[in-house]
């Protein structure tokens, strides 16, 4: 496709919000491109609006009335004079229809062709294609099953436990583990119902459930000059309900040979659907270096920064270049990772309350910084966290010369981070960084199930309890005094009592 004329990309609309919109706006500015933000009524004061060169309001807070309305995005692009659209992740990013609509309106879609999105989005179809391309797949039904009985028939061939998965889905929605026939009916109903809600299509298929595999994925970049390259793996086994919480690169379970084998399989997967731009091929890695295709995410991934840090590449920049018809800047040969990177997703979920999503007004943020720490944020003091969107607030990413160093650095960064106004997942991450099971690198997708309860026990040693109690009492005392506006210890006879009190309470 080298003869394809270069698209003119000067002004990019980012059809997203939060941290990923900020990330993409930054990449645009570093490439001398103007960035157009879109925002719902709830997001007028969000950081992505402040960072952009212009911003267009696209409707009420619910995503179905704003960020998910393809026509409003296209309209905003036209109004703002944008010539390209970056979808980020989530929202419209993996809707083939949207990619098509963008191109039909004479705009450049910064992502893969609609055909590739469609091919990978229909999961049973993707399985067939992968099998044909020589990419190892998990034994299973291969196509949607019509009933619990049909699912059972497949399960008898491949053996329980099995996984029910939404054919149209991804991201953990419409998935259910089934350990035996007795669980199957309710699980089938739940998966079908959830798939219908999430994707408008209730079809589910059956896969054999592997025994505690690791989730390892390969980053892909493909340009119009025939380069389809793999850029190493990411380890994403710390998950909760199939939602990733912590990612790292490289994977502690992957050596040079396995990296090459998985990378080449991922390239075959991408090439089989005519892929372009950045994408991720997810695998389950079982003991003995056996790996199976899970799905391909045909978009920028939340966890892309860990790859950027160890390979010294800028994946969003590569996307912008590829969309403009330029070749990728990566070398054709396999690259070697330098050091180690870890990402913690800071979400507005309360780990001590079953990770329930929380809302609130963020009154204060102290971001971590210093050597080896990257903050990809989507919030600032003054923002409200509402119920309408994904709870991801920001990502802390730490790089170190070794995995051990990266963990220590992440621990230090999490010590520095302060978010006041909404409960976050920060305490969970902080504890994982101290956890020997995580530190060993020998963990799998059962990590949270196995260690979660222990990790989230109340931790308060005597010294910390006493210090916190003293601080709370002094603060309360000060607050009451300040409210009353009178001396608390009787009338002051001279200035010194006031001085002592002022010193005690930190008044200036």
């Amino acid at each position, binding site marked *: 496709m080298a003869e394809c004329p270069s698209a003119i990309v000067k002004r990019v609309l980012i059809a997203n919000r939060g941290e990923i919109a900020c990330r993409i706006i930054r990449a645009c500015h570093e490439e001398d491109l103007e960035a157009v933000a879109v925002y719902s009524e709830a997001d007028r004061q969000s950081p992505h609006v402040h960072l952009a060169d212009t911003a267009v309001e696209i409707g009420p807070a619910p995503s179905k009335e704003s960020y998910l309305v393809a026509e409003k995005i296209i309209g905003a692009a036209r109004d703002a004079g944008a010539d390209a659209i970056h979808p980020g992740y989530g929202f419209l990013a993996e809707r083939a229809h949207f990619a098509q609509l963008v191109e039909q309106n004479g705009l450049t879609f910064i992502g893969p062709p609609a055909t590739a999105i469609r091919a990978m989005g229909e999961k049973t179809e993707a399985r067939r294609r992968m099998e044909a391309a020589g990419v190892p797949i998990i034994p299973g039904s291969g196509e949607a099953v019509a009933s619990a009985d049909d699912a059972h028939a497949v399960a008898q061939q491949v053996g329980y436990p099995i996984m029910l998965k939404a054919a149209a889905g991804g991201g953990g929605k419409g998935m259910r583990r089934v350990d035996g026939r007795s669980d199957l009916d309710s699980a089938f109903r739940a998966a079908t119902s*959830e798939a219908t809600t999430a994707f408008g299509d209730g079809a589910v298929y059956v896969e054999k459930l592997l025994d505690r595999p690791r989730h390892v994925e390969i980053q892909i970049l493909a340009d119009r000059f025939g380069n389809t390259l793999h850029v190493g793996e990411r380890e994403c086994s710390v998950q909760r309900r199939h939602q990733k919480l912590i990612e790292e690169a490289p994977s502690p379970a992957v050596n040079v040979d396995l990296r090459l084998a998985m990378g080449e399989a991922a390239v075959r997967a991408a090439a089989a659907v005519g892929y372009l731009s950045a994408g991720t091929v997810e695998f389950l890695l079982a003991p003995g270096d056996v790996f199976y295709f899970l799905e391909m995410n045909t978009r920028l991934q939340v966890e892309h920064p860990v790859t950027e840090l160890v390979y010294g590449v800028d994946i969003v920049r590569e996307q912008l270049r590829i969309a403009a018809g330029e070749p990728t800047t990566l070398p054709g040969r396999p690259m070697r990772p330098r050091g180690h990177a870890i990402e913690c997703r800071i979400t507005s979920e309360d780990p001590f309350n079953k990770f329930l999503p929380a*809302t609130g007004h963020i009154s204060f943020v*102290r971001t971590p910084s210093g050597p080896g720490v990257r903050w990809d944020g989507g919030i600032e003091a003054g923002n409200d966290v509402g119920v309408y969107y994904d709870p991801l607030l920001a990502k802390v990413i730490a790089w170190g010369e070794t995995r051990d160093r990266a963990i220590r650095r992440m621990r230090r960064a999490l010590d520095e981070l302060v978010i006041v106004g909404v409960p976050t997942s920060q305490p969970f991450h902080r504890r994982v960084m101290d956890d020997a099971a995580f530190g060993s690198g020998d963990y799998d997708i059962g990590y949270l199930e196995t260690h979660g309860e222990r990790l989230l026990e109340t931790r308060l040693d005597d010294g910390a309890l006493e210090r916190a109690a003293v601080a*709370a009492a002094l603060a309360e005392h000060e607050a009451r005094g300040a409210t009353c506006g009178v001396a608390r210890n009787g009338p002051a006879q001279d200035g010194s009592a006031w001085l002592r009190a002022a010193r005690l309470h930190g008044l200036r």
Partner: protein
Amino acid sequence: MRYSVTIADRTVQVDLSGNRVLVEGRPVAAELHTVPGTPLRQLAEPGHTTTFAMTRTADGWRLLHRGEVWDAEVVDERTRQLREMTGGSSGTGGRHVVTAPMPGLVLRVEVEPGAEIEAGRGLVVLEAMKMENELTSPVAGAVTAVHVSPGDAVDKGTPLVEVSGEP
């Protein structure tokens, strides 16, 4: 003034009468300093300095420190004595109202009025932020009321289910 400070079910007595700090009767050389215009406060003790981010809550203070978060209930002596006289307590007996922790959509109700349940039993599944969230009973006891049905949209704080705890 003397304060009872309770964090994670453990209570510490802090006496701040007369510009001294007594912790469980023991004098402590502690000062609290505020960074102006921020919630950051620094507790300075000999050989140890601790920085907290502190915000008021309904019954005390929330403290953030190096990635951990603690809720401190702060009660002054008089209030505590009043409570003790009137028999107020925070045990597991009495009526418990489970409310919606965030706005959302009720997907399923998993109990019926009259049901005898264990602590931790699932009561209601709420969809919020695109995730299904199961709300559970804080205590063992009997379900005395169910206020919502599947399909209801609820605001934060809406009562969902009431449980009468075992004494």
